[in-house]
């Protein structure tokens, strides 16, 4: 997993509340058996018109936002289906950080596994960030837990363990397998009903 410490980038605002994972990546793109290649289908039904051409009004299609790495959004981002394809698609598109009012619990976990940093900021801060011009850069400082935007500095909370995971970019399974003895002991003592 790619590590995140201090990230500088431009933003893309998508301020709807309750953006569900069906919108982030519609089901017809879940049939692939790979982890890559989902970026081209990110927000498919919003990005493309019925005739398959890009919707010129949709912000992801704006040329000046194509290189944005920070998504600004509403409350309850990533609700609904558990599909990790949503995180893969955001990452594959080039997004590294999401700043929203909140996240579904499953989507949050999927972000922690893929090096996408999900930050929670209040609406007033997000409204300010949503006004930024396409080439305005902001800085996300994970060790300091701060989002720095011109003269404004917004602090955010994050669980210490997840924070360290983002900074180190560690593979969970390797870590867990070091606990083999504890797992084996647990299994020895657990009740089994035949």
């Amino acid at each position: 997993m790619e590590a995140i410490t201090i990230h500088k980038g431009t933003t893309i605002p998508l301020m709807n509340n309750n953006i569900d994972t069906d919108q982030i990546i519609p089901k017809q793109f879940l049939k692939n058996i790979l982890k890559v290649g989902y970026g081209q289908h990110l927000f498919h039904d919003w990005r493309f018109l019925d005739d398959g051409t890009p919707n010129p009004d949709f912000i992801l299609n704006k040329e000046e936002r194509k290189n944005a790495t920070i998504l600004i959004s509403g409350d309850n981002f990533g609700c609904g289906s558990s599909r990790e394809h949503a995180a893969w698609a955001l990452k594959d598109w080039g997004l590294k950080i999401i700043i929203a009012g909140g996240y579904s619990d499953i989507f949050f976990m999927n972000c922690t596994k893929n090096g996408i940093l999900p930050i929670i900021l209040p609406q007033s801060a997000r409204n300010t960030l949503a006004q930024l011009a396409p080439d305005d850069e902001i800085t996300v400082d994970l060790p300091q837990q701060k989002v720095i935007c011109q003269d404004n500095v917004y602090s955010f909370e994050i669980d210490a363990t997840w924070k360290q995971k983002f900074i180190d970019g560690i593979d969970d399974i390797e870590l867990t397998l070091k606990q083999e003895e504890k797992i084996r002991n647990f299994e020895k003592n657990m009740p089994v009903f035949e």
Partner: protein
Amino acid sequence: MGKTLFDKLWEKHVVSGEEGEPQLIYVDLHLVHEVTSPQAFEGLRTNNRTVRRPDRTFATMDHNVPTKDIFNIKDQISRKQIETLRANCKEFGLRLADMGNEDQGIVHVIGPQLGLTQPGEIVVCGDSHTATHGAFGSIAFGIGTSEVEHVLATQTIWQLKPKTMGIHLYGKLQEGVAAKDIIMALIAQNGVDFGTGYAVEFFGETVKQLSMENRMTICNMAIEGGAKMGMMRPDQTTFDYLKGRKYAPKNMDKAVEYWKQFYTDDVTDYDTVIEFDVSTLAPYVSWGTNPSMAVPVNATLPKITDMNVQRAYDYMDLKPAIKATDIPIQWIFIGSCTNGRLADIQEAARVMKGHHIAENVTAWIVPGSRTVKNEAERLGLDQIFKDAGCEWREPGCSACLAMNPDKIPVGIHCASTTNRNFEGRQGKDARTHLASPAMVAAAAIHGHFIDIRQEEAI
């Protein structure tokens, strides 16, 4: 200070870690399906890892399965996904309820039906509706594919202990009001994220009176209120349901004795409590594009208060202040992990019996599993639906998420017993209206919703 059902289950499963930080939790049952697992198995192969406990893992196919001709998957990529699961199960030595197999069906229908889901367990699956299994007094939740890989390799998962929420359900449901209406009303009144960060337990007199099927419907949709875990105390209804099932313990007495320790000591033990009187509830119908956008069937649709509501009205092609019963229904779907069990099919058949669906309505009935289908046919329910003009189909997830060919056409209003009314969920530009099986069956007959409490004829 006592403990909640959730606390007791959690502490029995901690392998390592302290409260307040992510803890390593042991998983008793891992259910696997074709859509969210291929990348996980690929990860195992890349790293030369094996499945730690094949005996605690069970796989089936449901999302892609066609419900007309199950052995003829025309979509090449769907077929590849199905074949990949088959190959992975073989390679890693996993049990698989393959297509055509007696045990095959929607993963959240077959887990309980086979007695795999049991009280006191931690159950996970790469699917958000895993909350369903909490109805048995277990901690059950959906996980992403990286977590699927982690559970396959280690039989454990890292989780931060959530807060607890008790939802006290009291009062007696009116005739014609269903378990589905309870959970839909809760979400309509509290929003789609009221349960985020919480493990939710439904408790109270109302819960005690509910069948296991109805309990599963409620826990299934806990996730639509943001709670990835919904659960209920196991009781005699739970134990009676499990007895004699294929993978249930043979020595039930010993198991029941163990299971009986899982209950909440006192209502003050929850971090937060919602009181909910079900006796005044009307049947609910969703009008918008998330499950909280729903109203009692006898109500009018709400005002436009912000851009999210405006957007929902535009997508649904509806207007504020019309009555829920005025929404035209051209399609109905009965099935899914929310309402695809035998009791749901029976309830729909009871309403449908002796009637015919309205002229402009298409009706799909999709049993939740092969066993549900066989049992329904043994009871002659398929004939009731066929006589009414409905299509009786093969089991699977079907038009709940429309990954297989079962899609609701563009612009069509579909009354559906499913769980999500998101934009495009049942097909591009399809318009979903969530409701209970009886409400959906009645909507098929009339071509619009009716208040089934007032309908003498059905």
